């Protein structure tokens, strides 16, 4: 009996379906739990979902590489989803156009510092060049960050983990600072969320409203484009 069960398990795991089912289930359960506990700003749905997913993979004894191979089918949708961000961007274009000057002034230092603070801190604490390269694109949206990490010689799973923590930290920090400093401007909050917290910040910004969402999409894409050009150059200059 247990032998045939093991065979069945092996048979099912040979297809990408278990990985896809687990990801969907963890995402939905994470969202549900998030709503159940009244949307804590320090622990967004994605963090709950990721922990649930990691726990179920460990419990079911599924190897991460096997899981990743299956779930890669889902990640394919990341491409069209990035293209889809052009729609809110277009819809908010009049508002964005009116503010091109502050946006263009703020973006380059903000995107550069987002990378430099972390790389600098890690360097001071003695991290290896491999780790530094994985931390550099931490505020960049996943499809671009993967390309940058490969170029700099970083480790993709570590970079993605950094992405998660950065996204979660950014939404938490923005939430706290907005309340503390009484900032309610959706353009400012959205932009800050997108520049620092990439997709996770953008998801949070859309919860705040369409204006915040559009400014977050803008901040996220500009940070992505800018970092993709700037980080490889900076790396070469620093001789890393």
């Amino acid at each position, binding site marked *: 009996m247990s032998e045939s069960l093991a065979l069945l398990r092996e048979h099912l795991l040979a297809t990408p379906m278990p990985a896809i089912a687990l*990801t*969907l289930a963890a*995402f939905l359960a994470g969202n549900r739990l998030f709503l159940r506990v009244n949307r804590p700003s320090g622990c967004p749905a*994605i963090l709950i979902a990721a*922990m649930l*997913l*990691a726990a179920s*993979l*460990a419990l079911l004894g599924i190897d*991460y590489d096997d899981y990743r191979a299956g779930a890669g089918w*889902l*990640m394919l949708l*990341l*491409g*069209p989803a*990035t*293209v*889809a961000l*052009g*729609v*809110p961007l*277009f819809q908010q*274009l009049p*508002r964005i156009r009116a*503010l091109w000057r*502050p946006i263009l002034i*703020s973006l380059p230092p903000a995107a550069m*510092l*987002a990378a430099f*603070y*972390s790389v600098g*801190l*890690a360097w001071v*604490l003695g*991290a290896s060049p491999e*780790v530094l390269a994985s*931390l550099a694109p*931490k*505020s960049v949206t996943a*499809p*671009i960050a993967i*390309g940058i990490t490969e170029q700099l010689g970083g*480790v993709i*799973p*570590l970079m*993605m*983990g*950094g992405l*998660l923590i950065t996204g979660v930290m*950014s939404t938490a*920090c923005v939430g706290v*600072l907005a309340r503390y400093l009484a900032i309610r401007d959706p353009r*400012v909050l959205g*932009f*800050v969320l997108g520049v*620092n917290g990439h*997709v996770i910040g953008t998801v949070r910004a859309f919860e705040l409203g*369409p204006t915040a969402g559009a400014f977050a999409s803008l901040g996220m894409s500009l940070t992505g484009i800018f970092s*993709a050009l700037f980080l*490889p150059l900076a790396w070469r200059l620093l001789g890393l």
Partner: protein
Amino acid sequence: MPALRGFLWLVGFLLLGQALVWSLRLPVSPGVVGMLAMTLWLVLRGRVSEDIQVASQSLIAVLAMLIMPGVVGVFFIAEAFAGQWLAVGVALVLGTLLSVTTTLWLMLRFMPKDATDE
């Protein structure tokens, strides 16, 4: 079938992005080039069709789910970077706190004050 038609548009623009990135050797991801092309095309057309609206809205709603497979990898590489987790943790937590504060300061400094509430 509006969602499917819209999805085809998105994939079409992604392919365009891929073609541009490859032929011009751009250092940016195809998705971002596709997004910019999509924005430009919408500007030229002046409006968003129902199809594209439906497809993009549903994809944006699950954006966080699409990065989950990559993100959970961090829970499985703990041993590989033993001894560096303090550096990584401090860099991520403190670094993000600093960069959020800086961006916020920059935006408040340069943003005109006339906030239009939604």
